[in-house]
């Protein structure tokens, strides 16, 4: 019984960590540390909840821990292990504190607001261009000329120039991008570009040009129509 009910949870938690850190990246992009921490913390919470449901299971879970820490009736290896933990733990805390406060050359975590609220004059505008096949085709033509170098011919954000940007250009075929937004929002972002982002969008990390310099409003509206059609998405509406 000794350590038995502790072993399984410990293996589970380490297993989840190893899965998130090393196995999942084999299939998709690696997870940021913040997310791994979140999931591991949730697992640990679940383990504690499950272990403390009844008096017996609580004793089975915490018993070995308290006995180990209090050094009750210990000898040999266990005694040394306890001493090691008692010495190493404060050192670990100290090292953590040091490494989190010491200056380093790693840039701080990203905290950019992706969808800042648009200025008042762009709220609630609707597309004045009738949705006809000709206009959509015209929009796609303009898209191919002005947008596709970065946002990609397949509307997937993988244009030839996209590799040069961090953050990369938006992927319109992802249902969590333009499908969540109204057309007026896109109109604002295209017309005013990265420099036109509002204060709450700080830091302004967008290489989007201010297209109002080159395109007429009418052309922008057509591009929006072409984008939605090409990416097989529908804009958010209220009707």
């Amino acid at each position, binding site marked *: 019984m000794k350590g038995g009910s502790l072993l399984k949870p410990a293996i589970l938690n380490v297993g989840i960590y190893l899965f998130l850190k090393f196995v999942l990246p084999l299939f*998709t*992009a*690696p*997870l*940021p*540390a*913040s*997310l791994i921490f*979140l999931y591991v913390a*949730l*697992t640990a919470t*679940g383990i504690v*909840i*499950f272990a*403390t*449901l*009844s008096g*017996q*299971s*609580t004793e089975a879970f915490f018993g070995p821990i308290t006995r180990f820490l209090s050094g009750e009736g210990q000898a040999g290896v266990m005694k040394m292990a306890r001493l090691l933990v008692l010495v190493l733990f404060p050192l670990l805390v100290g090292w953590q504190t040091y490494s989190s406060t010491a200056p380093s050359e*790693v*840039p701080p*975590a*990203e*905290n*950019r*607001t*992706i*969808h*800042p*609220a*648009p200025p*008042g*004059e762009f*709220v*609630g*505008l*609707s597309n*004045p261009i009738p949705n006809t096949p000709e206009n959509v085709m015209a929009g796609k033509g303009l898209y191919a000329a002005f947008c596709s170098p970065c946002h990609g011919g397949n509307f997937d954000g993988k244009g030839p120039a996209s590799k040069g940007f*961090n*953050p*990369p250009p938006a992927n319109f075929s*992802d*249902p*969590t991008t333009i*499908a*969540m937004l*109204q057309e*007026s929002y896109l109109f604002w972002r295209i017309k005013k570009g990265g420099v036109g982002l509002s*204060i*709450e*969008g*700080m*830091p302004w990390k967008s290489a989007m040009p201010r297209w109002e310099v080159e395109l007429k409003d009418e052309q922008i509206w057509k591009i929006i129509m072409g984008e939605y059609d090409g990416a097989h998405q*529908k*804009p*958010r*509406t*209220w*009707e």
Partner: protein
Amino acid sequence: MTDQPSNTSSVKLGLAVAWPAFWNGVPAKIVFVLLLLAAGLHPWEGAGLAILLLLSIPIDIWAMGVSARTVFLERLRLHPPDSIGLTLWWQGALLNILYLPLAYVIEGYAKEGAKAVAASIMEIGAIKGLGVAERISIELTLWGSAAAVVLIVLVIGWLFLFGWIVRRQASGARAEEASYQGLVRQWDLMRVPADQSLLLTVFTAAGVLLVIMLWSFMPVTTPHPHEQYKKEAVKVEPPFKPAEALQKTEKLSQGKWINVRLREQADRSGSVGLANEEIFMLNHGEHPRRIASTGRGEGSLLAGLLVFLALAGAPLLGLAQDTPGQTAGVAYRDIPAVGSRNIVWVIAQLHLLLAGFVLGVPIFAWICEIVGWKTGEKRYDKLAKEFTKLLTSSYATTALFGGILLFMLIGFYPKLMAYLGDIFFPSFVVYCILFLLETATLYLYWYGWDAMQEGGKKKLHLFLGFLLNVFAFFIMIVPNSWATFQASPVVIAEGSDMARAWAATWNPTWWPVNIHRLIANVVLGGYICGAYAGIRYLSAKTAEEREHYDWMGYVGNFIGVFGLLPLPFAGYWLMREIYQYNQQMGITLMGGFLSWLFILQAMLIGVLFLGSNYYFWMGITHRIPGSEVKYRRPIMAMLVILLLCLGVWMTPHSLVASLEEARKMGGTHHPLLGVFGVMSAKMTVANLMILVTFMSFIMYWRAGKEETAGWAKVAKSLMGGVLGVAAIVVIVLGVWGYFVPAIVRINYFSVAQVLIVLFVMLTITPLTALLLRSAKTTTEMVWGRMPPRAGYTLVLNAVMVILLMTLMGYARSSSRVHWHIYGVMRDSSQYAYSPALGYAAVLMSLNTFLFCMLVAFIFWVATMGEKAKAGGGERGLMSEVALLQVIGLGVVGLGVTILLFIQARFVRVIGFVMIVLGLFSMTALGVPQMASLPPAEEKFDVANIKTASDMAAIGQKIFFSKGQCALCHSIGPSESARCPDLKGIGAKLTREFIYESLTQPQAYVYQDYRHEGLPKEYPARMPYINKNPIGLSNNEILSVIAFLQQMSGEPITVSPSEVTQPTQTAAAIPVTHAQ
């Protein structure tokens, strides 16, 4: 285990006392170090060091005492001599003064000697041939180990001497004969002060002191992430001079003029045109007559009451009137150092929390009373009475905080309050009347409890309870209209006072907020009652008490969960209405600077769901003997589902990632997990969590009973089927939601998910009830067997609900960004920006803590009868975030210290709450910190106007800001057709016509031809633009006309020469025929 002082080495003895004593003192010293840092003093140099050393003396004495007593009792089985801490400390200090300088000198000689010897060894030929690195290593090792050995010997020497001091103490002590348990008890008692109420008082005083210190050290502004942002100087409105106003308007004497105005008011059918703020101030002294005349037919009592209320309100609302030229026209007042906003924040939040409790409790107190009356079970009646007792003692405090809030608002925001007062005066009156009725009903309900127990009297008492709830509901929705009007104002043009107040009341978010708050109040009330029961359970002394408070805790948790299940639906509805009212506000909340707040919200709600289920599950395993094995698997399954859902819910769309991590992911959206970040996924998991929690309850309900009905098997498989199908459909709809247009998902899929969950609840609940009617009880539920952690779980749930309310209160208030009244009245004070989450979270935690202390105090008062017994951003030492982090860490540390060293249950609960709040603040400080700053305000600067297009540029700004035109009008086709589309209006209309439309809006009204059927009027009426509340000046109106013309591609006919220079007094009328 027992060591004899004689056969224990002095070194061991010295180590046993000195090592724990050192660590005992550290947490307390860290708190002082943090406070010193917060105060701007380096704790390791100069005055800071001196203060720290001084403060360390009592800490060391205490720490020495604790560890010495422990060693004496546990290891040596000796009775520790009195004041052993002090004795050991001064003797130890003496030892240090003698020994440490000596040790320093010895170690110094040893090091120098070892270095010299090592250097001479290095001269040996064989070693000389080695590489430089190897030689340095060898030399370092040589003298280093020698010096280390000497150091170790010196440490052991110190321990030996200190152990000798301890042994001297031990030799004089008498042996302790008690059993080991007795010794432990004695040790416990030694740490608990005899007078616990004194301890509580001291602790509260220390808490208050800490809060005051926190206030005075905490900077009141958020560091601006963009220093280039320069705030505009606050434009103070010119003081209002009644005499000038009179001369300008009419050449009449003041008294006559007021009379004329009054007569006009009596005659007018609805023109608000002249009823601007200034006149409101002049007039409101006359309100009694005005209001009394509107209250015709309600009886003289009512009229008298109105006069009284209006008179009572007069000095408050009209502070400015008495001293014109000095205080008049002040838009804001401030309190230095602390800041008016922080004060109003704390007071308003406390008032709201108390009010939520006071309005939530009567709902279920009344239901409990009905249950007790219907079933004849006395314990329900007793519980209902106990709930009501909590109510009576918190009612007065709620009103007190309401009063303080009113004074603060009137004092700090005179302009805003005058505006709101102008619009909402009739509902102020209604509110006061409701308040009187509620008070009267509450007292009748409470004091009549025992007198109205039997027969018809009981029915009357139940009716009183019903009335209490009806009044309470209206008391909640009336102030809701004021707050929701600030967030989603509607156009108020004209009509009687009543009509205007009513129009403002019925704004788009009023009902969603009413419903959301009603449910949330029940949740708050339920969990707080649960926490109350939890604390009483923890400190219960008799089996009877344990039984009662265990049961009460169960009922409180049940009511909380019962309210929690529909709450997300109500919240979703509110959010949808906000998005529909204003896309900008919706994005600010969900995608913009407040988006991280919803991750914190998910965390808090997640803990709440986990805590509530945990309590249910513990109820099964503890109250139903022998059930643990049977329910282990289902509980594990539910726990895993809950954790998976919580994982999805807490995964943000844009992740916190370093540049390197973001590069690897290809942006801050993860390609796979990013899909968890949007509403479709969140709605799905929220519904699943609700289902799981519901099943937790059903399982608890059925535990320990065996169904005897013949159709039990069929019913059970039917319930399983319904649940399984419902869960699958909810998930399918959730996944499908990614592939349909947003509006289909919002209007149909999400609604369908909610309906499915409701359907499950509405089928399974009655089915289970039917099944259990004929079921036989196999194992009786045993109350009072829950472990202490169940009590703490109840407290945790209550803290989570309070934190959630403070968090969402901040969200509701911050979503208005730099507006007092969204799009209508701008906040031009220095507090127009919205603080970042971390700063806000610290205030939320402070509010939660203060509220918990208040409630604890109120409950303590309630139990007396029956017993007959946490500037400027330029702080030099640390950034604001770091400072708040150390404070948060300090609070956690203090909490941990309390849990470690104090046995008194109540104080332990406080320590637990402190840890939870500290951890919450730390989490909020860990997410990205963004403050929302107001855009620079447009000033009409005559000097800068050179050309007509300058005017048009100013006009454009006014159109979208001060003029509030865009609140209804769009330029180009719009989805919200409240008013005509202004695209090309400058080409269609002459400037004279536009001028007339702005200043005499009803002179010519356009019809709406856009929609089907006959042309009809637009839904919103155009207000007078040159009069209050918008009140554009002539120059501004001309600029707007210039903008409208430019926008329509027309030549601008307004010339800059028409702009009135500020020095010119005569108001040039540019358009002659406009009248």
